[in-house]
């Protein structure tokens, strides 16, 4: 199992929702190992859907209780194109080992806190990978230290502030030492200091980053390169500074 930052390559990725609606249309881009990429776009552009594909969570292999479509088959083959991590394409055979290289942090902390205590939550990933307990404990310490929550192992998640809970979710992803880290709206609900601290934190990481965000100022500081997604299509890509300065582009795609 390789460590260190992962290289990402996406080629003509397309995806349809079960009801036929197109979510992604032929998206193609690459991210070099250790690169920081911003993913910009209005609501409904498909940013979250793209992140789910990069994390290997789509297409879904499981019929959940919540799904509206009880008669739909359990396997979804509505995706085309490839996602490759370190040159290895994501497919049913490779998906598990590749998913181990990817960490994803969703927008809402409540959607991803699964442990009784802070320590238990951060330990979930390492334990799922069957690491020996001493290594799990070390990974938990590392993850918590990286996000500034050192010593919080025994605390209960519901006693943490909103910003601390976000950092807890990040710690849980970092504890697995991912090569590729995906973040969905990491600054939503954070105050200016929280945003600044998060930016500094992410800046210190070695992993490849893909950050989906509306927060133009935040991504401009953190990510040298950006992609713009609108209605499932990649409509622009290039230096973040240049894209953010193009007022007409921002207006056309609902970013300003």
């Amino acid at each position, binding site marked *: 199992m390789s460590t260190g930052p992962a290289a990402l390559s996406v080629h003509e990725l397309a995806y349809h929702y079960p009801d036929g609606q197109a979510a992604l249309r032929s998206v193609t881009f690459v991210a070099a190992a250790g690169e920081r990429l911003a993913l910009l776009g209005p609501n409904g552009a498909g940013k979250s859907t793209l992140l789910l594909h990069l*994390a290997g969570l789509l297409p879904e292999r499981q019929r959940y209780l*919540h799904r509206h479509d009880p008669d739909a088959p359990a396997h979804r083959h509505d995706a085309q194109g490839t996602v490759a991590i370190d040159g290895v394409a994501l497919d049913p055979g490779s998906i598990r080992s590749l*998913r181990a290289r990817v960490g994803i942090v969703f927008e*809402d902390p409540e*959607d*991803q*806190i699964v442990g009784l205590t802070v320590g238990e939550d951060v330990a979930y990933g390492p334990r*799922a*990978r069957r690491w020996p307990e001493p290594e799990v404990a070390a990974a938990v310490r590392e993850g918590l230290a990286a996000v500034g929550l050192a010593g919080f192992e025994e605390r209960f998640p519901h006693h943490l502030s909103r910003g601390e809970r976000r950092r807890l979710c990040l710690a849980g*992803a970092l504890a697995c030492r991912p090569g590729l880290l995906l973040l969905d709206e990491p600054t939503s609900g954070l105050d200016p200091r929280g945003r600044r601290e998060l930016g500094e934190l992410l800046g210190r990481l070695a992993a490849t980053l893909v950050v989906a965000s509306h927060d133009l100022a935040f991504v401009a500081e953190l990510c040298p390169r950006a992609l713009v997604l609108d209605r499932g299509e990649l409509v622009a890509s290039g230096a973040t500074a240049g894209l953010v300065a193009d007022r007409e582009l921002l207006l056309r795609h609902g970013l300003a």
Partner: protein
Amino acid sequence: MRPGAVLAVGLGLTALAATAPAGLGGEPVPGWSWLAWLLALAAGVHGFRSGGGTLAQVARRVAWLLPFVLMLALPAALLAAAGHRASAAVALVTRSLAATTSAAGTAFRLGPLGLLRGVRAFGVPERLALVLEAALVGLRSMLERARAMLRARSARRGKDGAWGLLLREPGATLRGFGRFGAALLLRTLERAEAQERARVARGADLA
């Protein structure tokens, strides 16, 4: 002390206290019963204290049961042989409260995480342990969500509270409760699915 051992000792003491004879059949309450109940009470209080609780907390946790315990104990005592009724009543109430205190103290000292570890140490099937863990994790936010929804309902309905009285306006009351319950359930299932996705993302199927 390891969680499994604490749980074993605590529950064992509870079982002993709960089944010690209370003189229902007419014979006097044996001395060792009183000893067992005293031990259970002491152990329970100790469990609370060592978990950071106070005596007042113990009392509150157990005292709310008193009306119910009395309701069950007094008729049973009244049906006991004459001359033993008072002692049977006292014994029954003591037995119930002592056993409850011991169980409560054990659980308090362990806390949710300790309880989970203890239950696993007992060899409870992993599937059950996982369901228990998920329930404990989701309990607090569930209660908050339910409370918030109830407050919103009360605010909308005003003087009638969240949904009125069942016997006075059964249709509206049941409909209101139905909507509340179904909405809460749907939100619960949505969140559960999101969390399951997070678990898969973090490696749930890597095992």
